[in-house]
């Protein structure tokens, strides 16, 4: 029959069928969305956003630019190759920055951050922070006031630096602006406070550098003419006095290297490399720890997954083939570990495997091991593998069991009736059909293992710890969150790559949970 109506199909009410179908579907989708909305919001707020933020930390590096804004600006021009210390412009800017940092107690955080890159910087900043408001820079204030008593009044600075002179004296203006801000923070009125030394210092520096002040006030022009005669104090010496490490160009190189707000430094560190002005460079042999840790984590996770398959497969088979009542009992035994605390189970392994522990005692009692040569089975890789295999075993057994349960016994019977021995029937017919269960269990166990933390921490000793222990260390002890985030990001990428490879080789639709 020929279609008489060539146009689009119409629904009963005359709207195009496609449109009304889309509308009906949209309502369905909306309802579905509303059903998952609470969970979605919960996951977004408590999980995705914090993790996203965490991952951003692996490249974020605001602290240097935020704490030392003036220094970062002038230090950009410094030639680090010259092996010479930066000039007075840097020292002056740094003095201003340090003064605020010390007042706000931000210098220690900055020191800690830079200490990741150059050891010793932390104490350098701490010491300097204590000294910076006692620098001998008061002579500048005295000399300005001697020149003209008006220099003592904050109003003088306020008037001057709010006017056109600000353009000519950028550092002083900046210092003044930050001083005003600081007073607001502190709840003080800037016009009632004494003008701080660093403002005089900045002014002196800029005037002595020949700032163009011809159009400015009489007072400023007089000062500009007079600064040449002023008695000076070397900021460089002042800093060196606080800590002579300031005379080490390495410190300045590090500050310069880490001034940008985005840094590859954490990732480089996580990959056993370091950022140098010349580019990435691998760390000295004895400082390379993360590569080894990543390799060990992968290797041990694979071993744990393998032993879970070997131990779990027969159990899953039994579970799937026993009569219901017995199978339920066995199932309870499999699930029993879930009902006890992870910590308890791990500690139990410690008791079992330690040198004076149950296993060693039995071996000695049996005469298999000499009393003075008890086996070390804990605080090493062996202990971690044993304990984690035990703990993760249910995650292997359950998917395998649920897949095996769906394989009807008639397949095995059919194979046998066709002439296959028990082994051939199993290997050619049953096993291939149980592979999806193995796949699902393996992915589950492997991914759990690769990020496992508590068990390796307790029984891993030095040789059995995972990358996750290092991440935890950086999160909670060294507080190097950036590095922790970089390590975590790498771990995530590794897992995704493995997942992708698994999908290519085995096929992810070959994974069944039942």
């Amino acid at each position: 029959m020929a279609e008489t109506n060539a146009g689009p199909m119409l629904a009963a009410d005359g709207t195009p069928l496609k449109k009304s179908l889309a509308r009906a579907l949209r309502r369905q989708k909306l309802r579905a969305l509303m059903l998952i909305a609470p969970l979605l919001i919960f996951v977004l707020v408590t999980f995705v956003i914090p993790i996203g933020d965490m991952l951003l930390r692996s490249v974020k590096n605001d602290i240097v630019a935020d704490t030392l804004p003036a220094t970062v600006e002038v230090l950009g021009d410094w030639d680090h190759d010259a092996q010479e210390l930066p000039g007075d412009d840097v020292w002056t800017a740094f003095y201003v920055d340090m003064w605020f940092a010390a007042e706000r107690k931000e210098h220690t955080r900055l020191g800690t951050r830079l200490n990741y890159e150059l050891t010793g910087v932390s104490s350098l900043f701490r010491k300097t922070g204590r000294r910076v408001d006692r620098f001998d820079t008061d002579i500048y204030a005295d000399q300005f006031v001697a020149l003209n008593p008006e220099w003592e009044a904050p109003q003088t600075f306020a008037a001057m630096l709010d006017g056109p002179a600000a353009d000519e004296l950028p550092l002083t203006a900046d210092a003044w602006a930050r001083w005003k801000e600081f007073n607001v923070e502190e709840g003080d009125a800037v016009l009632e406070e004494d003008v701080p030394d660093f403002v005089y210092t900045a002014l002196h520096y800029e005037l002595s550098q020949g700032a163009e002040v011809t159009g400015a006030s009489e007072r400023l022009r007089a000062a500009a003419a007079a600064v040449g005669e002023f008695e000076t104090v070397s900021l460089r010496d002042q800093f060196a006095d606080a800590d002579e490490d300031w005379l080490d160009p390495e410190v300045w190189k590090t500050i310069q290297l880490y001034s940008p707000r985005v840094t590859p430094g954490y990732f480089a560190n996580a990959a056993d490399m370091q950022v140098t002005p010349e580019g990435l460079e691998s760390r000295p042999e004895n400082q390379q720890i993360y590569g080894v840790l990543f390799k060990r984590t992968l290797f041990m996770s694979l071993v744990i997954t393998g032993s879970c398959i070997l131990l779990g497969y027969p159990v899953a088979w039994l579970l799937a083939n026993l009569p219901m009542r017995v199978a339920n009992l066995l199932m309870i035994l499999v699930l029993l570990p879930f009902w006890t605390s992870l910590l308890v189970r791990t500690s139990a392994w410690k008791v079992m495997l330690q040198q004076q522990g149950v296993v060693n005692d039995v071996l000695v009692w049996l005469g298999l091991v000499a009393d003075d040569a008890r086996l070390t089975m804990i605080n090493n890789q062996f202990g971690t593998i044993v304990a984690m295999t035990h703990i993760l075993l249910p995650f292997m057994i359950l998917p395998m069991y649920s897949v095996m349960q769906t394989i009807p016994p008639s397949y095995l019977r059919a194979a046998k009736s066709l002439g296959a021995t028990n082994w051939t029937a199993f290997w050619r017919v049953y096993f291939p059909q149980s592979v999806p269960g193995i796949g699902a269990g393996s992915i589950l166990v492997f991914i759990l293992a690769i990020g496992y933390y508590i068990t390796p921490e307790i029984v891993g000793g030095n040789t059995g710890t995972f990358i996750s222990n290092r991440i935890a260390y950086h999160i909670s002890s060294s507080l190097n969150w950036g590095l922790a985030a970089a390590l975590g990001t790498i771990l995530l990428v590794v897992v995704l790559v493995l997942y992708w490879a698994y999908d290519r080789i085995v096929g992810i639709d070959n994974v069944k949970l039942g």
Partner: protein
Amino acid sequence: MADTQSADAFVEFERVQKSYDGETLVVKDLNLSLPKGEFLTMLGPSGSGKTTCLMMLAGFETATHGEIKLDGRPINNIPPHKRGIGMVFQNYALFPHMTVAENLAFPLEVRRMGKSDREAKVKRALDMVQMGEFGGRRPAQLSGGQQQRIALARALVFEPELVLMDEPLGALDKQLREHMQFEITRIAHDLGITTVYVTHDQTEALTMSDRVAVFNDGRIQQLAPPDQLYESPQNSFVAQFIGENNTLDGVVQEIRGDHCTVKLEDGSIIDAKPVNVSQPGEKTLVSIRPERVEMNRDRLNPDAHTLKAEVLEFIYMGDIFRTRLRVAGREDFVIKTRNAPDQRRLKPGEQIEIGWMPEDCRALDA
């Protein structure tokens, strides 16, 4: 009952018992023997032990007592894979991860047959079930009937002498089922295979088999060719299980040779053939097929007893008429008459007289 011992028996069950739980016998004292080339069907209600018998024969269950012999040799201790019995399972049990051709090659492979022989046999088996082009497909890509045919081909490809089939057509629609019934019998007869076939569809049993074993309660109730089973059931279970049947309760009044009279509950007397009643006074269940009931007095013996009946319902079924009557206080008495030109169409409420030849009405155990 059935002949238990015969010289040319290919498969033999001797006093076989089976219990799963040690409390109840699922199979009770099973005796069965079938010659080479026979197509035997086990028919019976659900739970009567048919599958259990098949599984014992195939070796997946062991008999609790008794002996099973294959070609004269006891097989109780031979493992399933050495019995060389082809089997078609109820759900086909085609290996889902192998193609059709691989499925068929499997029994040949485990017998270490060479590749070229294997391929030739697989091809021949596929052609036999008219599935030649489907060798490369997976079982999931086949229709139910096609899967069934592959399962059949797989059970036959290694040329077993005995094939067991457990309700292989259960999942198919009526038309396909009838077609497959025909195919299976054809192939089985062409190849001269001994077949044990399980079903609970009686039409299937009657149309396909050389002999049918009717199972109930773990026993063979009757073992006979289809026509005998239908026309001369040995007991009331078989009579009721096979085909449609009218039954009347009564007491034997008199037995004379192969003729007896039975007094029904309302006092009327009928003629019957004594099958398993032996003396007057015994309670009995008489059974008569609907199509053997006669309404025309002229066609009966002159001295035959007749019953009064009232027409309750007349159903026109095309080729036949089905009439429900009230007879001797029962309202489920059915007669069937052929739609012939001279056949009367009865009306509800009509009073008629019915009777039968004494040999068509069997007095069975009560």
